[in-house]
């Protein structure tokens, strides 16, 4: 496993660990396992860690760590990585601050198409199928959360059915609503905040994906699993009202 891993400088205060560059649950599992090892074994002089699809950034205090020293400390952790892992961690993971965490499974309600998913109709037409069929393809499987980032709360999810792969829009939209569910190339994801967007918008969730609180600004973490549940526009409006009233009806189940 270690021969596929390389360590480089990302910036003056960040070390980058790169795994085999592909999108797969077993690679993500390695990233998250190394993040946990760094948090457990190198508690001093580390500002934060940032897991991505197939890489981990370790931001450190340059006054505490020289790059070469930290690199060799991280190299020493690699033999501790699990040798085989064909699935995501199903047990407990150690979070920063020594709090026990579980990987969670979520149900995310989505109202597909219409004004909330303006690109669904054209995607259906291009494929010669009904919008309902596209919704079926999108909501018939669980997705792994691979990464949060690019902008606050944006959720990068694992691969949708290949019949849904759709290149990014050549002309990005100046503004899409918070909660927009989108397809960009071979990925699907959710825009947590209103803003410009280049992905194809197929629906919207009433779930608030970014909140101004330091504990869990996003309900999701890399490694979580989520499933989209189609809802009607009426149901969307009802749930949105609940969220706006400060109720948080997001369904979750614990994985054991």
């Amino acid at each position, binding site marked *: 496993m270690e021969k596929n891993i390389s360590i480089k400088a990302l910036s003056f205060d960040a070390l980058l660990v790169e795994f085999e560059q592909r999108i797969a649950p077993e690679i993500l599992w390695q990233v998250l396992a190394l993040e946990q090892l760094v948090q457990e074994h190198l508690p001093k002089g580390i500002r934060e860690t940032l897991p991505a699809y197939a890489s981990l950034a370790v931001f450190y205090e340059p006054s505490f760590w020289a790059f070469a020293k930290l690199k060799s400390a991280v190299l020493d952790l690699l033999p501790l990585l699990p040798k085989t892992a064909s699935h995501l961690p199903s047990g407990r993971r150690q979070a920063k601050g020594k709090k026990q965490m579980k990987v969670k499974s979520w149900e995310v309600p989505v109202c597909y198409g219409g004004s909330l998913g303006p690109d669904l109709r054209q995607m259906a037409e291009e494929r010669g199928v009904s919008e309902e069929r596209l919704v079926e393809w999108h909501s018939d499987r669980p997705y792994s959360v691979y990464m949060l*980032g690019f902008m*606050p709360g944006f959720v990068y999810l694992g691969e949708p059915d290949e019949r849904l792969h759709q290149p990014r829009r050549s002309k990005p939209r100046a503004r899409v609503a918070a909660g927009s569910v989108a397809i960009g190339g071979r990925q699907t994801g959710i825009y947590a905040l209103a803003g410009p967007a280049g992905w194809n918008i197929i629906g919207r969730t009433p779930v608030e994906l970014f909140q101004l609180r330091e504990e869990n600004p996003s309900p999701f973490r890399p490694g979580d699993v989520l499933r989209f549940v189609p809802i009607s526009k009426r149901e969307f409006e009802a749930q949105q009202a609940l969220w706006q009233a400060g109720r948080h009806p997001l369904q979750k189940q614990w994985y054991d």
Partner: protein
Amino acid sequence: MIEVLKAGMYSTIQDTGRAGFRRYGIPPGGVMDAEAAALANRLVGNGRHAPLLECLLEGPALAFHAPAWVALTGADMQPLLAGVSAPMFCSFFVEAGETLVLGRAVAGRCTYLALSGGIRAKRHFGSCATYPLAKLGGLKGLPLERGDVLHPAASSPVRLRRAEPKIYPSAGDVTEVPFKPGPEWELLPEEARAFFLSRTFTLSASSNRAGFYFEEQIPLQQPLPERISSPTAPGCLQWTGGGQLILLMPDGPTVGGYHRAAWLSPENLWKVAQLPPGARIRFYISPSHSL
């Protein structure tokens, strides 16, 4: 209290930024030129993390309804206090009823205005740095608008302090900037790297607190392949598939799929942050062996 009579081009409350929330997509943010910002705070007796005003290219007009000690550092926006030229790089006292007007930067980009005691601001995720995309920090998470009101966070006695004034480049000036090769430097075509090292690059007017853009592109035989999204950081110089350069600044995205060709040390990033549109940069590989 201080009333905003004119907002300026992009005036935000900033501090030294937030740490620990990149995993949620929240960038560090904070001041672009940390050296000039720390100096402004020091001149009015504040600690280096105190919230202060960062003004880009054209500054605000502020009516003081209570007296305050103020310091201005960074780009010279030809400040006028009650109609008379006010000093840069030197603390000064503003009487109640006086108005401080900043104009356009004659050179440089970022001006820092520190108030003795700091500026009262919203704190989100450990920082008062304004980040409009998620409406974090500052007054309402947004740049100053006309009619906004600023309050000093505390009042503290200050004596007159001054520092060596600094001169910043103007449009057309060439700045030599050393860099360290980034994670994908070796993957870039050799002739493209040679082009990059042999030319000067002009800062585009579309540059902002998320990224600095350049007018020239790197000619490429074929587009660079898209990479699986991976962490980025302020100071990373990215090459897009089409050969456009983007230097990430404090509000830039936390992850991206472009090639990370190079990175700049903090001191060099602060220096570049002060370059106005039209200023030119020649990049060279840092000879230092600190890594």
